[in-house]
């Protein structure tokens, strides 16, 4: 792969030799747009939200850089302050992302509309704030970069900026954070339930995209010598999105391809073909309908064979999980919860003291899964409190609760089907082991742990790392999700019908795995289960819920002897 990257760099560096000054100049400008469009690819193709006002960050950096250059002229300090202009755009984007995502937590059209409105606002401010921005006619007379003012120098400056952006992008896409972005684009809730602050992750993605746009904008000012409100406005924002979509938002190079191809062809042909815009409009529609992955999706198969060249590198032992490791003591006291008008939990009190395997049973609608949702912070109680050990966890967001040692497996397997098996396992391994800056280190993809070795020994399909999780059978998905839950090595493991839909052989092996894990990890495992045979095999203590309250608790014999339970649970036993 290094060969290809090197070839790309060489191509970009040598290109001006074969091009006229004008083509070099034109490419240089499009490189800057490509830097901004790459950021859109990152947000939209990776993290799953679409920013519609990216020109705002491009424009902000361009104005800041322009003002700096006018102020400092050809002082060497501009080389310090221009990166700062780009960084300011990135920080602003990060700040906006944090504020909006924290408040909303969703990635739908509302976020897009906010960025769109912000971009319109930026355009209007740039137009109205005459004294600083020069108004509609723009900021004029911006000097070029000291010593780098001719066409070929400008080309290399832009090319370098784009290469920096693409390298940063390649690094991030390869890093754990890149995997997490793709995971949260697919199922944000699940990522949060692995203990990651998804809102912060999305804000980082938006911040990086703002930085990319800022890098483009900061170079744009000296290169063009003029910054007008349009560079902050809706027109450029929309162009960037269209370019990214046409080129292909999922790959790192797709947006660049889109910008260079569509943008450059437009400049070439707009003045020669009268109905050029009609052609373009038809082309966009065609791409969306026929090639949703963009043009890069069309050529991707041509290079797929190169994947065979992967080098294997030695595995690295994962560090131990952060935080306490002793088995969890869980106390629910007097907890009530409602969904809409329906009472889900009704003054529920129970205590689970690990280690051990505990089963929750009860008829449909008894509040079993709701109890799990409550424990992972997804259902807010109306009254009462939940204590993990001696600390209250009521009202904490899911990722903070997970960080205290809770793990969960859903009834319907919720793995990340767009990711590979290896990536799924990685996310579980990173959970509560890696945070902050560590998520930028691709090395983390080589982590392994004794638990992983054991799981692979038991289930060899987990070693087929490059297989997409979507290709797995239902049984394999159940096992993969259980494996992921176990890999986090929680102190309290919540399993919602882990054997649902499994064959008898698969069921036996899963039961064996759960029991092995209980012994090995010495943790509290809580299982929701309907099948009394399994309950009997697994559980030391059984809790029976009915109508959101605890009906009975005790070992299997106690429960069977309980008259109340028999009354509501006739026929529950197979």
């Amino acid at each position, binding site marked *: 792969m290094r060969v290809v990257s090197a070839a790309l760099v060489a191509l970009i560096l040598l290109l001006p030799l074969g091009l006229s000054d004008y083509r070099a100049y034109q490419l240089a400008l499009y490189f800057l747009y490509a830097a901004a469009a790459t950021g859109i690819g990152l947000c939209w193709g990776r993290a799953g939200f679409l920013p519609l006002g990216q020109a705002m960050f491009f424009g902000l950096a361009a104005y800041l850089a322009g003002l700096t250059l006018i102020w400092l002229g050809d002082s060497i300090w501009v080389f310090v302050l221009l990166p700062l202009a780009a960084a300011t755009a990135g920080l602003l984007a990060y700040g906006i992302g944090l504020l909006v995502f924290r408040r909303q937590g969703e990635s739908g059209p509302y976020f897009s509309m906010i960025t769109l409105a912000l971009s*319109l606002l930026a355009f209007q401010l740039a137009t109205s704030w005459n004294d600083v921005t020069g108004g509609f006619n723009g900021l004029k007379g911006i000097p070029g970069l000291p010593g780098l003012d001719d066409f070929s120098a400008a080309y290399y400056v832009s090319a370098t900026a784009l290469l920096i952006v693409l390298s940063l992008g390649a690094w991030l896409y390869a890093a754990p954070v890149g995997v997490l972005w793709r995971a949260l684009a697919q199922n944000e809730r699940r990522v949060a339930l692995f203990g990651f602050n998804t809102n912060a992750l999305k804000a980082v993605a938006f911040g990086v995209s703002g930085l990319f746009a800022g890098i483009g904008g900061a170079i744009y000012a000296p290169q063009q010598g003029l910054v007008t409100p349009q560079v902050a406005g809706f027109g450029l924002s929309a162009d960037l999105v269209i370019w990214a979509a046409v080129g292909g938002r999922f790959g790192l190079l797709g947006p660049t391809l889109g910008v260079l191809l569509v943008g450059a062809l437009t400049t070439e042909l707009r003045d020669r073909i009268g109905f050029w815009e009609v052609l373009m*409009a038809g082309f*966009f529609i065609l791409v969306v309908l026929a090639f949703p992955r963009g043009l890069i999706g069309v050529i991707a198969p041509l290079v797929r064979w190169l994947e065979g060249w992967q080098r294997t590198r030695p595995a690295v032992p994962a560090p131990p999980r952060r935080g306490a490791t002793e088995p969890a003591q869980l106390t629910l006291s007097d907890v009530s919860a409602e969904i809409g008008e329906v009472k889900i939990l009704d003054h529920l009190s129970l205590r689970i003291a690990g280690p051990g395997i505990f089963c929750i049973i009860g008829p449909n609608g008894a509040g079993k899964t709701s109890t799990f949702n409550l424990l992972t912070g997804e259902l807010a109680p109306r009254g009462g409190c939940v204590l993990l050990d001696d600390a209250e966890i009521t009202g904490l967001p899911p990722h903070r609760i997970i960080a205290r040692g809770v793990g969960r497996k859903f009834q319907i397997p919720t793995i990340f089907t767009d990711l590979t098996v290896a990536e799924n396992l990685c996310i579980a391994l990173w959970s509560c082991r890696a945070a902050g800056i560590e998520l930028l280190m691709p090395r983390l993809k080589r982590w392994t742990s004794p638990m992983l070795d054991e799981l692979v020994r038991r289930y060899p399909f987990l070693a087929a790392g490059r297989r997409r999780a979507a290709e797995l059978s239902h049984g394999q998905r159940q096992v993969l999700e259980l494996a992921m839950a176990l890999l986090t090595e929680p102190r309290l493991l919540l399993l919602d019908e882990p054997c649902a839909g499994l064959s008898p052989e698969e069921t036996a092996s899963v039961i064996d795995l759960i029991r092995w894990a209980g012994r090995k990890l010495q943790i509290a495992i809580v299982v929701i289960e309907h099948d009394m045979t399994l309950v009997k095999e697994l559980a030391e203590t059984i809790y029976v819920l009915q109508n959101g309250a605890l009906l009975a608790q005790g070992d299997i014999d106690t429960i069977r002897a309980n008259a109340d339970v028999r009354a509501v649970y006739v026929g529950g036993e197979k």
Partner: protein
Amino acid sequence: MDPLIVTQALNVVYGVTTLALLVLGLAVIFGLLGVLNIAHGEFIMTGAYCAYVTQANGWPFLAALPLALIICGALGFVVERGLIRPLYARPFDTLVATWGLSLLLRKLTEAIFGMGFYNVDVPLPGTVALLGTDYPAYRLVLIAISGAVLIGLFVWFRISRTGTRIKAMVGNRELAEAVGLPVRRLATYTFVIGTCLAGLAGVLIAPLVPVQPFMGLDYVLKTFFVLVVGGLGTVMGVLSGAAVIGGLDSVVSAAIDATYGYLTVLVVAILFLWLKPRGLFARS
């Protein structure tokens, strides 16, 4: 009362009701189908050109209404079948596709009518004395029509069979399909209703604005803002959104100037999107 204040108050009412009228088509398409139709403004433009064609042929103004319904309806049908249907599950892709569509419609109009401005004569020229001031008669009529269309749509949606079926489809598409509702056809109906409403608004607004290929751009963003402020899927949402966006724009424009009016609309839209993204009256 001060005639200045009365007139400005009427301006606010006019601003709100016409905005609601302009939004209706999008309220149906975005609010019910969830389709981010960037080409909404171009359907309004198509309606406005229908009004121009009517006038150019010497037909009475009202003849523009059926013409717009036929043309926008047919256009909506073709667009839904060819472009929107494959994209229901991919909202962002709809955005790109309808963006291309808006460009196409604009260019098509340009090819037929050229770039120039056209004007449509005001069907009811002159002013009417009202509450101590003179107010343009056609604008008063437009206020009344907007109100009537809003109420009509509200009632129709409530009591008609198609309205009920559309509600069922919007509420739970899978379930509606399971109980045998022709969901795909209903979606086409809904889309066509949306484009027809946009065309209707275009006809009615045509006598007041320059008719030209770019006119649609003026409406698309504002109408989206109205829907997110008001909330999707209810007539009350449309009305309250139009009241907030159109009302604030008018009030601030009247009290200070148009620049502040425009900035206020943007800031309020951002605040709503951020703090109350489901709007004032969202469909539950």
